[in-house]
C-alpha cells in the first residue's frame, strides 16, 4: 500500500494516537512524526493477517510505548511550545466552538490521566476497533478488554461530568 494513501487514510487517526500520549504540542508533533515513520517502515511487513487499521494502530501504539519509555518522567506541565494549536472549525458559532473545544480538551486530559493499558484500549475502542481486534493489539483476552473498557469509559464519563 502506498504511504501517501496510508497518511491520507490514517493520518488523523495517527494524530489522535499521538495526542493521547503527549500533551505538549511540540512533543506531540514529534511523536506523530515518529509514529508515521514507524508505520511507513512497518508497512513492508504487513501480511494481511489483520485489517490495515488494526495493524497501523498496533504499530502506532508500540511506537508510542517507545516514546513513553524515553520521555516518561514527571507529568508534563505543558510549557511554552512553538507549535501552534491546530485551528478549530470556523464553521460553528463562537460560543458553540468554545464549548466544544473545552469538552474535547477535557476528554483528552481525562484520557491522558488513565493508566497506559486502559488508555490504549479506550482510544482504540473510540477508533472503532472490536474487542477481538483490541485484544490482538494489546495481548489480553477479549473478556479483559470488555472489563477494562467499561471501567475506563466510566472513569472518563465521571471526570467529564465532574468538570462540567
Amino acid at each position, binding site marked *: 500500500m502506498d504511504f*501517501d494513501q496510508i*497518511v491520507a487514510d490514517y*493520518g488523523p487517526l*495517527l*494524530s*489522535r494516537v*499521538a495526542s493521547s500520549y503527549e500533551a505538549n504540542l511540540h512533543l506531540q*508533533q514529534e511523536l*506523530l*512524526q515518529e509514529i*508515521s*515513520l*514507524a508505520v*511507513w517502515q*512497518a508497512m513492508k*511487513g*504487513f501480511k494481511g493477517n489483520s485489517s490495515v487499521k488494526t*495493524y497501523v494502530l*498496533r*504499530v502506532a501504539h*508500540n511506537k508510542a*510505548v*517507545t516514546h*513513553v*519509555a*524515553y520521555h*516518561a*518522567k514527571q507529568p508534563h506541565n505543558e510549557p511554552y511550545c512553538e507549535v501552534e494549536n*491546530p*485551528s*478549530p*472549525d470556523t464553521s460553528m458559532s463562537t460560543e458553540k466552538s468554545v464549548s*466544544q473545544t473545552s*469538552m*474535547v480538551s477535557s*476528554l*483528552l486530559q481525562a484520557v491522558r490521566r488513565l*493508566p*497506559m*493499558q*486502559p488508555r*490504549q484500549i479506550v*482510544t482504540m*475502542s*473510540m*477508533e*472503532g476497533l472490536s474487542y477481538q481486534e483490541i485484544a*490482538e*493489539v*494489546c*495481548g*489480553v483476552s477479549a473478556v*479483559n478488554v470488555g472489563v*477494562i473498557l467499561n*471501567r475506563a*469509559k466510566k472513569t472518563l*464519563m465521571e471526570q*467529564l*461530568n465532574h468538570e*462540567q
Partner: protein
Amino acid sequence: MSNKPNDLEALWHQQTVSTVDFEQLQKQWKILRLKQYFYLLMDVSSLIALPIIIYLFPKELSTFELVWFSFVFVLVFVMSLCIIWMRRYSLGFKVDAGNTNEFVERFRLQYKQNIRIAYWNKILCFVTPLIFMLYLVVAYFGEYVQPDVLLKKGKLLMGISAVCMPLLWIWASKREQKFKKRLAEFEAQWDVQNSAVG
C-alpha cells in the same frame, strides 16, 4: 454531556488533528539510515582493527606480539558476541513484532540488559589497563621487544589507561544510572496500569 459512551466517541473524533510532514519524514529516515550505517561501521572496525594490524605489519611485530594480538582479538571477538547476545531484545526489535504487552516486556528486558552492558563496560575499564600492563611486563622480562620501542609503547598504553579509561568509566557509570532510572520510570507506568485493572 449525557452519560452515553457513544458521546465519547463523537467527541473524540471532534478533536483537531495535526498533519504529517512528509518532507521531514524523509529527512528523518535518511538520518536514521546514516546512523545505522555508522554504528555498523564502528562495530565492524572495532572487530577488524586487530586482524588488519596483524596483516599489514607482520614484519614489525615480534612473534610474542603476534600471539598477544591474536589473544586480544579472540578476547574482543568473544566480548562482542556477548554484547550482541545482550542486545538480542533490541536487535530486530520491530514495532510490528508483537502485541503491546510483548513489546513492553521486551523493552523492559532490554533496559535490564543495557544496565548489564554498562556494568561490564565499567569492569572493562579496570581489565584493559591490566591487559596493557601484563603485555608490558611480559614483553620487558621476556625481552621480546626492543627497550626503546617498549618504552614508547608503554607511554602510549599508560596514557590511554590514564585518560581514556576514567572517561569510559564515567560514561558507562552514567549510562548505568540513566537506564536504571528509565527502567524504574517505565515499570512505574505499567505497574500503575496493572494495579488499576487487576
